[in-house]
Each structure stands twice: as C-alpha cells, then as structure tokens.
C-alpha cells in the first residue's frame, strides 16, 4: 500500500469521518490540542531555561526535570492524540501541506534533540548539576534547540491552519 492510498484509507475510517463531518467535534478537539501544546511548550520552557541558567537556579536541573517533565509528557500525549484525530479527518490534504510537513520535521527534531540529551548530557548530570558547577555547552545547546524547535512547531501549526483550504 503506498502513502496516498494509506492516507485515503485513514480519512475513510469511521473516526476520521466523524471528526470531519461533525461540526462541533473538530473545534473541540482543536481547542484541546491548543491547550495541550500550550502546556507542552510552557513546561518544557521551564526545563530549557533552567539548563540555560536563566531561571529556577535554586533547584537542581535533575530535580526540576523529574518534577516538571511528567507534565510535558502528559500534555504531549494529549496533543498527539488530538493532532492525530485532526490529521486523520483530512489526511491527504494535511500530508500535502508544506507547512505541516515541516512541522512534523520540527517535532522529530525536538524528539531527537531530547533523546540525544538524555543519552549523553544527562548521563553524567550528577557531575555538572552539582552546586557551583556550570552546565555543559552540550546541555545548553540542547535547551536552545528545544526552544527553537517548539517555537517553530507552534508557528507552523498556526500556519497550517491558515493554509488548509
């Protein structure tokens, strides 16, 4: 099955059709999506700003991430589910939308960035997270990439809305 027929199949499923045809379902799902992404971006910014040494300096980075990131994941799960529902309702058009395509690339970038941070910088966090020690450049770079990627995701998401016809 090629991509085009997979997309066509997806938007023909009962749930995709329900979202597409029901006048209030899509707006509700979209609103929950906005609320969810607002919390993803907001909470991950708390972590990124800590890694950059801009805020929450009285808490260890490790502690902060452990406390905040569960909320980021929870919000992301909701964003992914609502996003998937909206995507499926008009899969072919979304898939062909250039801004949406780049948005997905940015999401992958954000994910890879997080994975790299987790596999490398976070490994010896005990060392660089000690009071008085400075956050390594790699960790700060991850924080900057994270912020930029998520700002891009929000912009491209808004742009997708404008360019879907």
């Amino acid at each position, binding site marked *: 099955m090629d991509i085009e027929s997979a997309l066509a199949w997806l938007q023909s499923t009962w749930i995709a059709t329900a979202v597409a045809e029901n006048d209030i379902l899509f*707006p509700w799902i*979209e*609103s929950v999506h*906005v*609320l969810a*992404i*607002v*919390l993803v*971006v*907001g*909470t991950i*910014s*708390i972590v990124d700003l800590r890694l950059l040494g801009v*805020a*929450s300096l*009285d*808490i260890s980075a490790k502690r902060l991430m452990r*406390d*905040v990131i569960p*909320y980021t994941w929870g919000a992301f799960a909701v964003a992914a589910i609502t996003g998937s529902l909206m995507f499926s309702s008009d899969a072919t058009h979304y898939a062909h939308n250039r801004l949406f395509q780049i948005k997905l690339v940015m999401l992958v970038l954000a994910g890879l960035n997080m994975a790299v941070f987790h596999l490398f910088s976070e490994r010896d966090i005990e060392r660089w997270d000690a009071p008085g020690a400075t956050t390594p450049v790699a960790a700060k770079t991850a924080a900057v990439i994270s912020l930029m990627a998520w*700002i891009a995701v*929000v*912009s491209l998401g*808004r*742009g997708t809305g*404008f360019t879907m016809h």
Partner: protein
Amino acid sequence: MTLNEICHWIDQTALSQWIQVAGWVVPTVQTIHILAIAVVASSALMLDLRLIGVFWANRPLEAVKARFLPLVWWTLLVLLATGIIMIIAEPARSLKNPAFQLKMGLLIAALTVTALFQFLHRRNAAFGDAAGPRAAAVTLAVVSILLWSSIIFAGRWIAYFA
C-alpha cells in the same frame, strides 16, 4: 458611538488597512500570542498545582509564587499588545464576536482570582500551606485552572463564530 461604528472607525484607520494588506502580520502576532499564552497558562498551572499540593509541595509557596507569578503578570502585557494588534487588524471579527466577548469576561475573572490569591497570601503567609485554609486555597487554584483553560478554548472558538 455604537459598537458597529467603533469597529468601522478602527477598520478605516491607516494602521488597520496596512495590517490587513500585509498578510504576515496577523499570523505572526497570533503565534506570539500563543507562545505568550504558553508562558502564562503554564506558570499559572504550576502555581495552582502547588496550591492544590500536588506539585513542589515540599517547596515554600513563597518561592513558587516568586518564580511564576511575575511571569504571569509581565507576559499578560505581551498578550495585551498582540491582542490589541489583532483587534486593530480585524475589529468586527473580535469585538463583535461572542466567543471573544466571553473570553474577555473570563479573562477579567482569571485576573481577579490571581489578584485575590496574592491579596490573601500577603494577608496570611500560611495561605496555601498545610497549616492555612486548605479548602479556600484549593478552590481558588481549581477555579484558576478552569478559567485559564476556558480562556484558551474561547480564544480558539473566535474563529468559529467569525
């Protein structure tokens, strides 16, 4: 001056006309608006969760408040500025829109609740802590969360009532 007349007057200003023609302004301003909402909503949420006692319960409320409350108030200025630009760009679409009007009402309520918390905490340093009036603090926090969430919903629904 009626609302219709006000909207028409704004629409006819040079600034409004320029923004309407320059297609990039509204999407850009909307994106900044959303990012600012991320800061305000997340900051308010973290503080409200602290008041409920599920987040950073072992940190003093004073520290959590100092960390997040300034972000709420200062970022609201960004929301105000971007909001005003959007109203200037599309006065009728906002000012005459029931979703927008509801959003403004909810916003006033949210700001009142936030200010009320600050007032109560200043008056009684134990407010929000285990020793203080728990029910009041939790209620305030839950109402705050509901209000900010509703504001976000109402904001999105503006497009559907336009």
